[in-house]
């Protein structure tokens, strides 16, 4: 060590930044909201948003961007919020995320951008999702972002199968590259799981409609009530209808049942049906919407994922006296977002964890009357270290019930695969792609992403796949380069 350095004064410690707590999300009162379908969370006020934005320390190496499947410039938009440039912040977010009002509400930020927020090492991470929602909602209320400028038309046509989050992302990205994009949606409304799966109280449908309208303003053509595999096949789209590339984002909408006795009784629903009746068909708003749904007093929802939480909270709002989650594992293993589990608890949902249904009982008229369950305990750790639940001998008990909603997972609808013989599937029946970046299937010019490739996942992961697929389609349309399974490019 040099003499000079030794004589230097010790550096003064940096003044500590005052710790500002993470701003809480305003919510409807739990008792009140359990009886209505209005939004549970109310969104930040302008003041809260600015305070929360000041918590961001603007890291030189922002890990949060890497934590976001669509790589939003998170520090950039948060700085704009701090500067009260809310519309500019929304514009910046929309550069990479066409559905910020959706993602701000339903993405599991705690597992993605917020999980890697540097602030989170010592205190609560910045509420990135809440800020994203704030800027998107602000933009919706205070004016529209001008449409981006497009390059000249390329003359290329792209078909997008499925108007879910993945398909909407692909469409938004490719229309901005100058291609003609047509979305084929099987249902009568665009949005996929955003409209049929996620309830109004978590994601108001007006928000999805607004985002879809924005895509249409960009020039995306939307063909509703078009079941690809029935009305047109993938081959027909490419060979007869002149599409140069196809993206398949048809999701995983085939529900699983438990295969236990009694599943054919009246009052047993798949979560898909139960939620679709309420969300897409608006059964909760009868008689404004002419969709029937019986009012059940005691409802059991089987499963511990987000779909189960959506179903059980819907049951409460439809007037159930008792709404149960029946889950064969422990709470810590539930794949649902912590926030959704807590919301359900606060609203009065009863949790029967380490409980497995074994039989549904019914009356002479064929309606559900009860659910027979078994208590479970965790077994010894297996080779993977996992302690799996095993039944406790003699622990059978009966829960009085008049409806059972099964939310234990879904798989791919086989319709497209059945009508596209050269489309390779994986062991579980999902479409096989070269890798997550290229999204190329075994069929030239056909790309796939989202739940139809990975199985049920999250909205933002489907959007991330859509972003990757859009980049790959753009490259394909420009170069014509394809791949072959032996690794050599082919044209």
């Amino acid at each position: 060590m040099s003499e000079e350095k030794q004589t230097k004064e010790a550096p003064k410690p940096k003044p500590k930044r005052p710790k500002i707590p993470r701003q809480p999300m305003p919510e409807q009162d739990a008792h009140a909201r359990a009886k209505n379908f209005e939004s549970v969370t109310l969104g930040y006020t302008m003041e809260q948003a600015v305070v929360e934005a000041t918590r961001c320390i603007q890291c030189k190496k922002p890990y949060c961007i890497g934590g976001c499947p669509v790589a939003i410039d998170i520090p950039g938009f948060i700085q704009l919020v701090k500067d009260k440039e809310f519309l500019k912040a929304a514009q910046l977010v929309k550069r990479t995320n066409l559905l910020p009002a959706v993602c701000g509400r339903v993405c599991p930020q705690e597992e993605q951008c917020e999980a890697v927020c540097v602030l989170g090492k010592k205190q609560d991470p910045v509420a990135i999702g809440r800020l994203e929602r704030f800027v998107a909602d602000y933009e919706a209320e205070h004016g529209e972002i001008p449409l981006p400028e497009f390059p000249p038309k390329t003359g290329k046509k792209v078909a997008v199968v499925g108007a879910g989050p993945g398909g909407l992302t692909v469409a938004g990205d490719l229309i901005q590259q100058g291609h003609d994009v047509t979305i084929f949606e099987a249902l009568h409304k665009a949005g996929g799981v955003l409209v049929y799966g996620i309830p109004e109280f978590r994601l108001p449908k007006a928000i999805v409609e607004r985002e879809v309208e924005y895509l249409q303003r960009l020039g995306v053509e939307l063909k509703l009530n078009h079941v690809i595999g029935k009305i047109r096949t993938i081959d027909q789209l490419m060979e007869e209808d002149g599409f140069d590339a196809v993206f398949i984002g048809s999701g995983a909408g085939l529900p699983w049942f438990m295969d236990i006795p009694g599943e054919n009784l009246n009052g047993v629903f798949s979560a898909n049906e139960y939620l679709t009746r309420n969300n897409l068909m608006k059964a909760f708003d009868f008689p404004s919407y002419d969709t029937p749904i019986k009012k059940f007093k005691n409802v059991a929802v089987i499963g511990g994922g987000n779909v189960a939480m959506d179903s059980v909270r819907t049951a409460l709002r439809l007037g159930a006296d008792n709404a149960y989650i029946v889950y064969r594992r422990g709470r810590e293993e539930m794949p649902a977002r912590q926030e959704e589990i807590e919301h359900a608890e606060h609203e009065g949902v009863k949790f029967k964890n380490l409980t497995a249904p074994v039989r549904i009982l019914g009356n002479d008229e064929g309606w559900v009357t009860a659910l027979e369950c078994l208590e479970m305990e965790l077994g010894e750790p297996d080779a993977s270290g996992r302690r799996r639940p095993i039944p406790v001998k003699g622990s059978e008990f009966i829960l009085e019930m008049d409806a059972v909603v099964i939310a234990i997972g879904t798989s791919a609808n086989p319709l497209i695969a059945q009508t596209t013989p050269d489309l390779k599937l994986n062991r579980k029946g999902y479409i096989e792609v070269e890798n997550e970046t290229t999204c190329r299937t075994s069929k030239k010019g056909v790309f796939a992403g989202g739940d139809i490739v990975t199985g049920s996942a999250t909205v933002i992961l489907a959007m991330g796949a859509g972003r990757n697929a859009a980049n790959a389609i753009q490259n394909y349309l420009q170069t014509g380069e394809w791949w072959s399974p032996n690794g050599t490019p082919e044209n």
Partner: protein
Amino acid sequence: MSFTTFKDIVTYAVEKEAEAIRFYTDASRQEEYAAAKGTFLAFAEEEKKHKALFENLDPQLVANYKFGKIPDLKRSDYMVETAYRPGMPYVDILRLAMKREEHAKKFYDDCVALVEGEDQKKLFQMLSQEESKHKLKLETMYDDAMAKAGD
């Protein structure tokens, strides 16, 4: 059916494995997609290993066989019967296979109770344990797939 000799039992067990191999191989032929074909063929391969093990059984091997506690997740035990249908989803294929193993294990357990000779009992216990291992393997695959989906 009566099992009077060691050979009777082994012959029966080998035939049961051969039937399982035929079942899975036939199913694989009926599947349109390579992935489902592969799943059934993999099950057929597992049964071939069992068949080979049983074909080479002799009283000494059974006498030295090590018994252990095989965990039983009982995932298939509360399910209704299911039949093969072409194109059935992956989880249904697993359910079908789990159920078959459950029945095989139960059959050998019943046999243990029926026969009187200690050697015969031990042979059936061994066969039951082998089926339990298959059942556990399949139920673990199934449980993993289902846990991820929220079941």
